[in-house]
């Protein structure tokens, strides 16, 4: 594997795609309807796959191409499909919704945090992809933000998925792909976590007759 041949074009492309991922993340915070959010999550995963594919092309890395394909199939298509199918069983809780303005403001603040944390790190190594590192952390933080502000369990799972997209992006940009076994293990583990969460959602819904997070308040003290 050789260093990137045309760092200029390469790093511009990476920055562009990274920005696109963050922008879709913001749209995700803004939209309130779950199907729309799931479509946006699928779009974000597709962009992430494109980012991985671009890196694979510029560095002649076959493993990365496989990673890109896996992201495209599993996160761009499979997981959104599964979640769309369970969505009707989890109607939106009644009562006041979170204000989109507040969510976006929080998300914006987290981008600043991400830059403050990651810029010194991005300066440490001469990677053409370094400019995307703060954006990757911003995506992860926005996912967490969605997770903690969610009012129903399904949205929490979605937030976790966005968080996961962020950390995969970080791994891609910072390391050009981890060793194959780690990459595969991490991918499968997180996939399994999502599937287990989905199973658990079903069971919670069955026994609580609801999946409002507010109802999950029996354990105290």
């Amino acid at each position, binding site marked *: *594997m*050789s*260093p*990137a041949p045309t760092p200029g074009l390469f790093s511009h492309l990476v920055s562009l795609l990274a920005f696109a991922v963050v922008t879709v993340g913001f749209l995700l915070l803004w939209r309130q309807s779950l199907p729309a959010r799931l479509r946006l999550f699928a779009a974000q995963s597709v962009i992430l796959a494109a980012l991985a594919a671009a890196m694979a092309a510029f*560095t002649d*890395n076959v493993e990365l191409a496989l990673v890109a394909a896996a992201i495209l199939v599993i996160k761009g298509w499979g997981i959104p499909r599964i979640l769309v199918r369970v969505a009707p069983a989890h109607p939106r809780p009644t009562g006041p919704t979170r204000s989109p303005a507040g969510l976006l403001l929080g998300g914006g603040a987290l981008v600043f945090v991400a830059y403050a*944390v990651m810029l*010194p*790190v991005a300066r*440490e*190594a*001469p*990677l*053409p*992809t370094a400019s995307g590192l703060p954006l990757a*952390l911003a995506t*992860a933080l926005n996912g*967490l933000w969605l*997770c903690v502000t969610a009012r129903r*369990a399904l949205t*929490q*799972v979605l937030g*976790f998925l966005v*968080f*996961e997209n962020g*950390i995969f992006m*970080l*791994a891609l940009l*910072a*390391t*050009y792909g*981890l*060793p194959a*076994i*780690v990459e595969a*293990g*991490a991918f499968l*583990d*997180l996939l*399994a*976590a999502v599937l*287990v*969460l989905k199973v*658990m*959602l079903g*069971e*919670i819904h069955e*026994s*609580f007759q609801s999946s409002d997070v507010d109802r*999950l308040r*029996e*354990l105290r*003290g």
Partner: protein
Amino acid sequence: VILSVLLACPLLGAAALTLVRSGRLADVLHLAAALVTAGSAARLALEVWREGSVAGAAWGLRADALSALMALMVAGIGLVAGMAVPSYLRIEQQNSLLEPARAASFRPLYHLFVFTMLLAVTTESIGLMWVAVESTTLASVFLITLERTRPSLEAAYKYLLICSVGIGIAFIGTVLVYYADLRQPGETQQALTWSGLLVAAPRLPSRVVELAFVFLLIGYGTKAGLVPMHTWLPDAHSEAPAPVSALMSGVLLNVGIYALLRFKTVTDAAVGPAFAQGLLLAFGLASMAVAAAFLWTPRNYKRMLAYSSVEHVGLVCVGLGFGGIWGVGGALLHMVTHALAKSALFVLAGRVMQRYRTAEVARVRGLRHAMPWTGAAFLAAILALVGLPPFGLFVSEVMILRAGFAGGHGWAAGLALTLLVAVFAGVLRAANRMLHGRRPDDVATGEAGASALVPVGLNLGLLLLLGVAFPAGLAEALARVVRVLGLGG
């Protein structure tokens, strides 16, 4: 070879137990798997003792003194808690709280859980360790929801979500360590290993390493139950079936600390020990303080034990924060002694729960009349847990506090001591209420399934041995582990 055997035992056990799903044979297989696993861990410890470290045949497995200690702990507590499993499952089924089909899935998952923990502590690769630690969550989550009650579902959901996020944050830290070690873009590297990282540490950029350690501390700290990432712990540990609680509180938390210990060693080599020590001290004291606030008036005895785990994990981190041979050695010993005491207590709490059908302190009365042996063992284990001599926790706590006072952390050691005393008072008060008083009329007397008391007795015996005799080999063993951690030459 011994490493492969060690990892194969629980895997084969799990596979066999998916085939033999119930009956006497399943119990025998289950115990055999736990026993052989513990035996191989002991064998591994012996080989490491003789040769310093043992390399595995494949997968980048390698065990040094620290790995051997951890493996011994995981497999040993796995055996102790495992011995309580048959009677636990039988009584739950008798009380028709558990369907036979679900009971059948319990044993294979149990061994899978043990396998993931063993893998986490014996792999050389930081990536594979991450995968293994994440797998511990996945393997244990369905153990918590064994009885499908609403609280257990809620607890398992919180556990899975919070720990998955935590482990995701640890992934960021792992990636940053990898990034710090990256020399050239696109360069092929060998998988990151502990030994490779230690060699490379002095030339790693300090800012990246510091940031990575913060992410790793938050991430693996979530698994270890450090405040403020501990919120899943009291729920999961109190709702899980007793043998699983014993395993989770006894050793799963220690696996989280193990990951922190490894990265702390690398961080120390890269930026000096002060950075990690300060952070560990702060998180440790915060954990102790939050736990002490709850433990002042515990209402639910299983939650009391869970919060006590938060407290002890905090104390271990305080010990690591004090540093030096006494601090780190004390922290390591404390991991062992706490695992022994806590696993015994959770097994006992499970027996109390099965008899009184409540986890509330206020509704358990006259335990020493209803279950004389369980009550006596409960009292002894509680006394051990709060750090009274002649039990082992007294020794490890004294070592940690000595490190603090001698190492110029007087205020921190003083605070830790104060918190320990507060916990002492609260926990003893609760135990006192449970043991004495009049037994409710609908609670039967006598001991059922008393075979579960054998491992508890074993644990208490070991704690007594560690407290009274402090065997000569132990000091040397601890010193060797401390040396692995880059201290004491």
